[in-house]
């Protein structure tokens, strides 16, 4: 298969970037999108050009490192799934494909398609953990957790922190990410003691990082590679209201 690519090139955070046209030929339909970029980079290196910088790590959809907006969709057209799980057979032969970084003010471009997502780390550092040392994994049934809660917490914990939710959101909001982290811990007994302070601090840092606000368009859940449901955002709203109320009445 042959493709025409329009790829965002930007030397560093301070210089302006632009879309540059490339061509790749004789690509197997079973090549992954990232492998196709590897092939293009090999060609660029052979021609003495600077290769295209992009992020990837596990290449099996579990690490959340890859972060490309392909034809205007975060992680490309094959939802749910990360870019590394996208194969060239999803595209028409001779198609023109536009590749951009995740565009959110809180994710500054480092180079080309590589972005700095440490804003998400700072949200987690604000409260997305349990302060007490929990030691090694306890006996499975020593702390009983209702099945429904355990399942929901597991669903929320599936978030791989890629930031596609904020990238796809028309408002650049990271509510789906934050809601998954808040819900995951709020649902489990180990997370209960810090339930209120956690949601207040994490939302405060989320806002301070310059993410937008949720307007319930549900674009985030449509592109999420871990299929996190926007119902967790409703849960975040509940948790936040509850924490604010309890703080007001002085609890």
């Amino acid at each position: 298969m042959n493709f025409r690519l329009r790829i965002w090139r930007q030397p560093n955070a301070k210089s302006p970037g632009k879309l540059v046209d490339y061509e790749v030929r004789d690509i197997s339909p079973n090549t992954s999108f990232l492998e196709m970029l590897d092939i293009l980079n090999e060609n660029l290196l052979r021609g003495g050009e600077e290769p295209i910088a992009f992020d990837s790590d596990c290449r099996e959809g579990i690490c959340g490192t890859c972060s490309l907006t392909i034809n205007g969709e975060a992680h490309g057209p094959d939802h749910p799934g990360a870019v590394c799980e996208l194969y060239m057979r999803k595209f028409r032969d001779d198609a023109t494909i536009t590749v951009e970084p995740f565009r959110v003010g809180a994710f500054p471009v480092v180079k080309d398609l590589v972005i700095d997502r440490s804003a998400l780390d700072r949200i987690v550092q604000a409260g997305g953990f349990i302060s007490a040392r929990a030691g090694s994994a306890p006996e499975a049934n020593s702390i009983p957790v209702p099945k429904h809660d355990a399942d929901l917490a597991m669903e929320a914990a599936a978030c791989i922190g890629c930031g596609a939710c904020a990238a796809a959101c028309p408002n650049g909001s990271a509510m789906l990410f934050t809601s998954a982290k808040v819900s995951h811990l709020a649902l489990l007994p180990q997370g209960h003691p810090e339930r209120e302070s956690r949601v207040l601090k994490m939302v405060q840092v989320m806002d301070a990082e310059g993410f937008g606000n949720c307007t319930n368009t549900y674009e985030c859940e449509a592109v999420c590679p871990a299929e996190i449901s926007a119902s967790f955002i409703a849960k975040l709203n509940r948790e936040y209201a509850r924490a604010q109320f309890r703080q007001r009445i002085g609890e």
Partner: protein
Amino acid sequence: MIVAVTGIILIVFVIGHLLGNLQIFVGPDWINGYSQHLRDLGPLLWAIRLFLLATVLVHICVTIQLAMENRSARPEPYMDKRYVKATFASRHMVMSGLIVFAFIAYHLAHFTFRKTDPRFALLKPDPFGHYDVYSMMVYGFQNYFVSGFYVLGLFLLALHLSHGSSSFLQSLGFNDKKLNPRLALGGRIFAWLIFAGYTSIPVAILLGLIKPAQQL
């Protein structure tokens, strides 16, 4: 949450106002008596009006502030952007809302304060001594531009409500995986019923189905 609560208040008003207006189909005595009844509330009517005005202003001010934060959250726009799930209505709430606000301002000047049409001052009271709202509406809507702007305003209101009338549940923390798609559909149906209900009035007048109760 403030947007959701003020939104609910305004939705309740939109329903009540529609039920009041639809009395034009029953006849002049009903709608004229109804509007006289509202005016007889006196200070209470003004309290309700000021409350609604405050609700509208809070709804707008908070959303404009949120929208400005949302704009600055993505300083560099996408060269190419496709939406998978976000509807047109949900992405253009500010645009539809502000045009609806402009429409409401005109609508109040037109029918509530009657500053735009000098003919309304010439209308004589109906046989019960009430102001002839029925004829006022008929003469008002006989103008194609007035009716056109009205239909446009209502179209944008319905677009606004097709997202807003189910979205407020999510903002208030209510989201059920099974119920949500049905509530979203219900919200859309509600919004277009509101559109159909309100626009039936100018359409009926322009088709000549409703005639003025008195000549000017």
